[in-house]
């Protein structure tokens, strides 16, 4: 699935979710996303970084510059308390929404 197909805002939820596991940098995040979605969701830098910066501006995630073992400056993102609350409420929203959509799109399963 192309990143553009991701519903606007869903990417934010995914980032928050992944960052809830542990702080990480942008590239690791995209790899993690790919891996967790079993290669379905591939997000390129063009979507990833603007989304990260937006979340940072919102105050839901915070960034820290660390020196990696390869002695490179790496920007690590982590979830803030604010972001944690946001994640909970967005997850609840998502459950409601996806349940509703599933009920309509996949009636046979019900």
């Amino acid at each position, binding site marked *: 699935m192309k990143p553009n197909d991701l519903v606007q805002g869903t990417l934010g939820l995914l980032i928050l979710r992944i960052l809830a596991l542990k702080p990480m*940098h*942008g*590239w*690791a995040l995209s*790899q993690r996303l790919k891996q967790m979605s079993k290669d379905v969701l591939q997000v*390129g*830098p*063009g979507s990833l*970084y*603007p989304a990260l*910066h*937006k979340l*940072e*501006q*919102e*105050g839901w995630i*915070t960034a820290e*510059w660390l020196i990696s073992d390869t002695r*490179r*400056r*790496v*920007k690590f993102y982590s979830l*803030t308390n*604010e972001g944690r609350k946001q994640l909970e409420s967005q997850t609840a929203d998502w459950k409601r929404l996806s349940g509703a959509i599933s009920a309509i799109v996949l009636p046979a399963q019900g």
Partner: protein
Amino acid sequence: MRWFRKVRLRFQSLFNRSRVETDLEDELCDYLDREIERAIASGSSPEEAKRHALSSLIGAERIKDECRDVRGVWWLEDSMSDIRFAVRTLRKAPVFTVTVIAALAFCIGVNTAIFSVVDTVLFRPLPFPGQERLVAVTEGVPGLGFPVMPFSCPDYLFVAASNRSFAGTATYHTQAYEISGAGQPRRVIGARVTASLFQVLGISPTVGRAFTQEEDEHSKRVVVLTGGFAQSAFGTPERALGRTVLLDRTPYTVVGITAPSFSFPIRGSRFNGDPADVFVPVSWNNDDRQQNVSNFDYSMVSRLKPNVTIQQASMEVHGLLQRVVENYPSKIKQALRQMRNFSLESRIVPFREEFTGDVQRPLLLLLAAVGIVLLIGCADVANLIFSRMVGRQREFALRTALGASGWRLARQAITEGLVLSVTGGAIGFCVAFWALPLLIRFAPDNLPRLSEIGLNWRMMAFVAFVTLAMPVVFCLGPLASTLRSALVNQLRGEGRTTTQGRHQRFIMSAAVVVQFSLAFLLLTTTGLLTRSLIKATEANPGFRPEHVISVRIALPEAAYKTPGDITDLFNRLMDRLGSLPGVRQTGAISDLPMRSSSNVVISIEGRGSDIERVDMVFCRGNALDSLRVLLLRGRLLQPEDQVGKPHAAVISETLAKRVWPHDDPIGRRIRFGVDIPNNQEPWLTVVGVVADVKARLTSNSPRLLLFTTPMDWVKQMNVVVRTSGDPLLLASSIRHVIALLDPSLPVEKIETLDQVLEESLSAERFRTWLLVCFAVAALLLATLGIAGLLAYNAAQRTQEFGVRIALGANRRDLLVLVFQHCLRLSGTGIAVGLAASVIVTRAISALLYETSPLDPGTFIAVPLILLLIALGAALFPAWRVVRTNPITALRAE
């Protein structure tokens, strides 16, 4: 904490841009490197890995842009660069920039200063809580010629007790007191007030307390001091509390001190209009409460109940006043029944109108004048910006072609305007700050609430509004029309030369025409008021002020109990002064000319209940002779006309003609009050007629004056001394003589009659001088406007002139062209201004003394001045035309 982090991030994005940019760069590089490593790890060749990774980063710049966008500061960044750009362009044109900023700073400065004065005096809420419900209540007997008066005690008490409209009523009456026990003995203004006054005003003393109703009723000797007075007399308010001060030599205990800012009554009020230093209970006696129905001394201030309108209250008080007469003592009631025309009326106005009446019109005139200066200044700035924009047409066309939207260019233009106007506004604010104290110092004494003037948010809002509104006016207009013609020229391929279109030329000319008409208007107004002031200065006041010095003596009741005591002191004082070297005559007069005097009703023997209103002035010694009042018939009052002898009176010419148009007034008799059986006032015999003495230099209607010997109760008089030399040299001798006679008698103010005359015109002088300043400023700005336009036009037409000269045109014809243009502009402006002036000056006719609103002198001089200025402004472009060298002119393009 969240907002804090956000603000920090935004700040970082804004002010640490290079850091943010590097970070973004690093972050993306890091991603790229890791992608490459991953690809190599999964078996790709390094080159392939690199190519693949780079392709995923296609449009790295776009990514960066998006990242920047979500940071949400682009508009601020744009504005910052706009401002930087504006400052840079403006610095390249220093003459233009300095001219515009100076014009703006001056206009904003004077406007702010005048605005804050006018706002404080006329518009700002009074410093009393819930002030919008405060009203001034007056009564009056219109039938007898007194439509508006303060209340009499019985009437006030009746209204205060019976009304349902007011949440509270209070009354006050100011008088001078001699105060001792608080520093040097001196004279202060005291207010006799009801205990309710402080409640009605909604303020309470900051130290101590206000006095109570009981203290008022039982005539307790208690006093409330103003904070300012307590400070000057005792150092701190706390130290004043509990002290005993002597008011007219009677001991009073200080029970309270108000806030230092408290000032009441408000200066310039119609009645009792001097701010008091001390407040004492009014403590009416039984005579006051019942008998003194004609002492209309007490100003009434009331607080309306919520939901009661002024009309409703007026109706109610009017009704009450019809009933009040029933409560009068029977003798008075009977007497009133015999009088035709006697009917008590009432008027209620918002409390503010108590003091704004006289000053409103002149202040609004000043505000209009500075408004005109501001408009002329704005037109100047607009034209300057206009001409600059025409020069920048190529730049705008180029930027439009490169894809700049009209909105973006407009924003740039407004930013440039804002940089100019904010700088001008900031300097203007400083100018206002510097000008305000100066303005207050020279302001006439009767201007209310001057002490309240100062920095406040209304003033700031005014500056902010003017500063922010101006760029929109003077930038957008020029820009819109410049953009249009720039594009048109571009399309026509005429971008090489930059000339203005017909539309622009029209706007710029219109601005100059408007400037000239506004300047015309301001100049005529100023001219008329100046002529009126000169006429007033030259007017004959009816007496000779030179060589006369005056000192006000007020004898305290406790020390001067009998009329004999009073007469004795004044006689001894006048004798001693009379024997000083250089003194010609001495006398004492209850009210100096040009000062207010008591207005009373008199009746004439044999005329029944006909009455006349006159100004009553009491004289002792050779008062009228000392003032050199011109005697027309009979004799003046003399030292021999003393209290107790058959009463003599001298009347003014107009009064004589009015009462006895065909007969000789000498020997006729008049008396105070209405001629009814129980009038116990003695008859006065007219012994002389004098020429009219003016009440104000600027009044055309002569007042009806009655001079007579003092009543028993007259304790305050001005002792006047006519000297042969400089009267001020006598001041110290006068103090010395007074100290010899009564060492504890304070000497208030020693002034010459010349000073009194001068002071009576201070309000007129003040506003006229201000107007002259504004008119000169308007003239300068208008000159700048027309000179700028003509010079600009000449510069624009250099090429055309060059061609004309090359083709053999006579230079004189070119000069005619320039001057024709100049005359067309100024002539139109003058014509429009003339028409406007004829209409507008009528509105100020009430402020003019013996000057027609269409005064020919002014209406000839003003156009001449403007014409001369316009011609002067044309000289520079004319000189340029004469010097035009056709070859350089043609090459220049």
